[in-house]
């Protein structure tokens, strides 16, 4: 039986230690043992030559990327366009695509336009759309990686990731899912703002500089 090839693609501009990569790390153990999984990082505005064939020779693609200005980060958009060109010469109608979008805002539903962009890309390049997952509270994803699945602030997220994994494992299409952390929004806001103040002081600036106006 031919192995099913799956490419997990981080679309973060950070090659290491990204929330997008952490989400793929959480998803990977939930995927079927029948899958042959490859991991790729598209962190520059061009797909490395050696990765293009490997990625588009897959049966399933799973993109994980941060929400940038309500959409796809520009470097990843460039990569998708390069893939569109490649797929015009090498059609892959049996390829199915899933997308996980993490946003710094609390509400995962703010990722909807970005998920739709990936879905529209699928139609444009002649591959199948699977499902999208919008994850809110992106600023806390990495700090939660040690929290057991389904517990505390990860409760909604774990349920959603399981649902996505079930669709991936059966290569089926599902409705988009949007989740926010099981954590008070005000707590997330306070924590994020403390983090900004900590970083600006570490950079030798005053906390008032955070609101600096240049005009």
């Amino acid at each position, binding site marked *: 039986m031919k192995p099913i090839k799956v490419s997990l693609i981080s679309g973060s501009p950070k090659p290491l230690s990204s929330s997008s990569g952490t989400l793929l790390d959480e998803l990977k153990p939930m995927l079927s043992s029948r899958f042959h999984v490859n991991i790729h990082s598209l962190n*520059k505005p061009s797909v490395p030559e050696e990765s293009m064939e490997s990625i588009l020779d897959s049966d399933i693609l799973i993109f994980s990327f941060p929400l*940038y*200005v309500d959409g796809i980060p520009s470097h990843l958009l460039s990569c998708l366009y390069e893939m569109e060109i490649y797929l015009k010469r090498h059609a892959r109608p049996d390829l199915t695509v899933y997308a996980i979008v993490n946003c710094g*805002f609390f509400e995962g539903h703010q990722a909807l336009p970005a998920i739709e962009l990936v879905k529209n890309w699928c139609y444009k390049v002649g591959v199948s759309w699977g499902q999208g997952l919008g994850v809110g509270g992106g600023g806390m994803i990495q700090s939660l990686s040690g929290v057991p699945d389904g517990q505390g602030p990860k409760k909604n997220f774990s349920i959603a990731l399981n649902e996505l994994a079930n669709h991936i494992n059966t290569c089926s299409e599902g409705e988009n899912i949007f989740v926010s952390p099981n954590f008070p929004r005000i707590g997330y806001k306070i924590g994020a703002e403390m983090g900004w103040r900590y970083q600006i002081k570490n950079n030798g600036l005053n906390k008032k500089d955070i609101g600096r106006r240049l*005009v």
Partner: protein
Amino acid sequence: MKLIIHDLDKIEFERLLPDLPDSCRVVSNDGTIKNCIGCFGCWVKTPGACVIRDHYGDMGEWLAKSDEVIIISKCYYGGYSPFVKNVLDRSISYIHPYFETRNNEMHHKKRYNHTFETSVWFYGDDITDDEKATANKLVIANSINMISSIKGIQFVKSVEEIDGGIL
């Protein structure tokens, strides 16, 4: 000031807007733009300005000086072209990193006591209805997050169709 962000080549742009008033600033693709690296330096290292000092590092300041932003972009999958999106990704220094709740959603606060209008022209000969729907959602989300108002969202098949009254 009017800020025009576009992805047209020099000849196409000059044909579209041959007599540009001095009150306009134009952001064109000179082939040198670097992509946002997600470092948040524009919020915590050099607040208000991007740490990448290419020709696009002052987008936040330019937005703060603009009354109107005109975007002309080829439509890619229901969104902006990679260049135009890159310019917008490099523009988040315009807003403040702190959050506030508006319409029961989390958004960033204003850095400047200022707002601007946005007009978007998407061009392309094969823009689907789904792509138009996504593009509308995207521009609305941008206007909420950049704390601006929408003057118009237009879809045209070719650059030639863009109204001469764009300004």
